[in-house]
């Protein structure tokens, strides 16, 4: 069963995700009073229709092709090309995991502690830099943030969940 247009597997998951989000949103909206949910529901149902069209447009069927063409403003099927830059999924997930790790780290131990840890380890493991370079990077980033925000702007940057 290969009705999916070529090279669109990833896009399908994303489109399904958006579809699911819209459904959940519509479901949540019904918890509110009619006048409060009126406008959100207008948006929700419009979104649901659009998401459905998008999903159909991803299929390699006559209907799918005409939906794709109708919205694209282009004459031929040149749009249905496979994207040229397609990195490995694992590589992308790892890059994201670093960001998630950084955010959770900031949440746990605060900016001033997490910034050097992150900069150092990111440069070391992702960038394969020498330990000395990593140390320089970590120190300068931390000092910059400390001077700019804490010293000059008098911000008290978040210190982590353990500090009240």
């Amino acid at each position, binding site marked *: 069963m290969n009705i999916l247009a070529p090279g669109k597997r990833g896009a399908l998951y994303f489109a399904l995700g958006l579809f699911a989000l819209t459904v959940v949103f519509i479901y949540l909206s019904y918890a509110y*009073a009619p006048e409060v949910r009126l*406008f959100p529901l207008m948006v929700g149902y419009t979104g649901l229709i659009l998401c459905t069209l998008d999903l159909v447009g991803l299929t390699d069927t006559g209907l799918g092709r005409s939906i794709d063409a109708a919205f694209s403003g*282009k004459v031929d099927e040149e749009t249905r090309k496979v994207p040229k830059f397609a990195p490995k999924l694992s590589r992308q997930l790892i890059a994201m995991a670093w960001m998630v790790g950084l*955010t959770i780290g*900031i949440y746990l131990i605060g900016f001033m502690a997490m910034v050097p840890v992150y900069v150092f380890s990111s440069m070391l493991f992702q960038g394969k830099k020498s330990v000395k370079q990593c140390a320089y990077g970590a120190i300068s*980033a931390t000092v910059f*943030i400390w001077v700019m925000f804490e010293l000059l702007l008098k911000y008290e940057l978040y210190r982590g969940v353990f500090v009240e």
Partner: protein
Amino acid sequence: MFDSVLLALDNLLTVNSMGFLVMGTCIGLVFGAIPGLGGTTAIALLIPLTFGMKEFEAITLMGGVMAATSTGGSVSAILLNTPGTAPNAATTFDGYPLAQQGKAGLALGAAATASALGGLIGVITLVAVIPIAKEIVLLFAPPEFFLLAVFGLCAIAVSTGGRLLQGLITACVGLIAGFVGYDAVSGEVRYDFGIDFLWDGVKLVPALIGLFAIAEMINLSVKGGTVAENPEMVKIQKIFDGVKVVFKNYPTMLRGSAIGTFIGAVPGVGGTVAAFLSYSTQVQMAKDPETYGKGNILGVIAPESANNAKDGGSLIPTLAFGIPGSAETAVFLGVLILHGLDPGPTILFEHEDVIFTLILTLTISCVLATLIVLALARSLALLTLIDVHVLVPAVTVVALVGAYALNSEIGDVFVALVFAVVGYWMIRFDYPRVTFTIALVLGEITERSFHQTMLISDQNWSIFVTRNISIILLVLIAASLSYPSFRRWSKKRRMRREGAA
């Protein structure tokens, strides 16, 4: 009026005032360039400093900040895909691809020049419309606000090239994100999942930091290398070419400035919409729309001229009724109150010299900011030659601190993260981030003005078709939505004709 201008000049041409103006401009540039900080934060943080100043000195300091922030923000938008302030987000679409091609110097030069000219045009327009300022402000009532917002959404969705459907979808998702939090119309808190952080909704700046800056950092660390894919180009860049290209393409700049001034005058819509609308108009009017988003210099000039022109526009409601036209002017008016002035509808009669001091300050500052950026552009462009494995950690941490600094809330850092992940997949699968951003900005005003319209008209939908400006806006909406089909049809016809010939 002429006396006031002279008095304002007299206020301004002192060593102290000029010193504060230069200081304000520099602070504005730095605060503009660091994501999350921006003009409102800068002015609020500077307030205690102004207590010891004379009122016009405080005005020069604040005016300097206001005029320089969006110029500063264009620098990080171009070099790092990180909009320094929200209105600069539209600059990333073509500015950053230019930086990737090694043409950062050209883009910086053009952005700075467009900023200065846009700023000047905004201020000139402001002075010109002072006599009819009240009428302009009263022209727009809730039905018009609603239709204007819908028009903005549609026009921008259409400009997303071949991705109209996906653009409309992300617009819906943006609106959905915008529903989170307090709804002023009903007084209810919605979609908060019991988290009190969300009572104030999803804030624009952390969302933009995630969507543009951090998403691009993820992208870069996947790709590796440096931002500029062609390092040799960076070194031979002539900044002055960027200046010239703006003058050569003056229609784009003028159009951008006009859009910026007009949209800037509409309270609650503001600079972000102005810049995006200017960008999308440029794309739609271009003969070669497919080159946009890939490094077309006109795609930098259009939004940058608009987002500086908005400063002049946002003062129109202030001069008319003493009410702020933007978040920056709101804080600025607060500063005036702290200095014992009482801005109101009579502000122009009572404090004419204050107003002209501000206008002159804005004029001087936007030119000064541009000169500073032009002078530094060459060295700034070298940022695109830094190894991404050094750049990514550095930019990420500053961006996240910026997201936090906006409101000192750790939740905003998580907002940035969520939007970064979503934004990354949006880049990957070619779902436009433009419409998403604009929906997030316009969501609140769209819903609010819709409800107000219904209350005012007693649920009578005909209110939308019985008012002159509403009709114009409806026609614009229809025209913008049918534009892609029209374009396809005319292209087909041309091809057929050529085939026949």
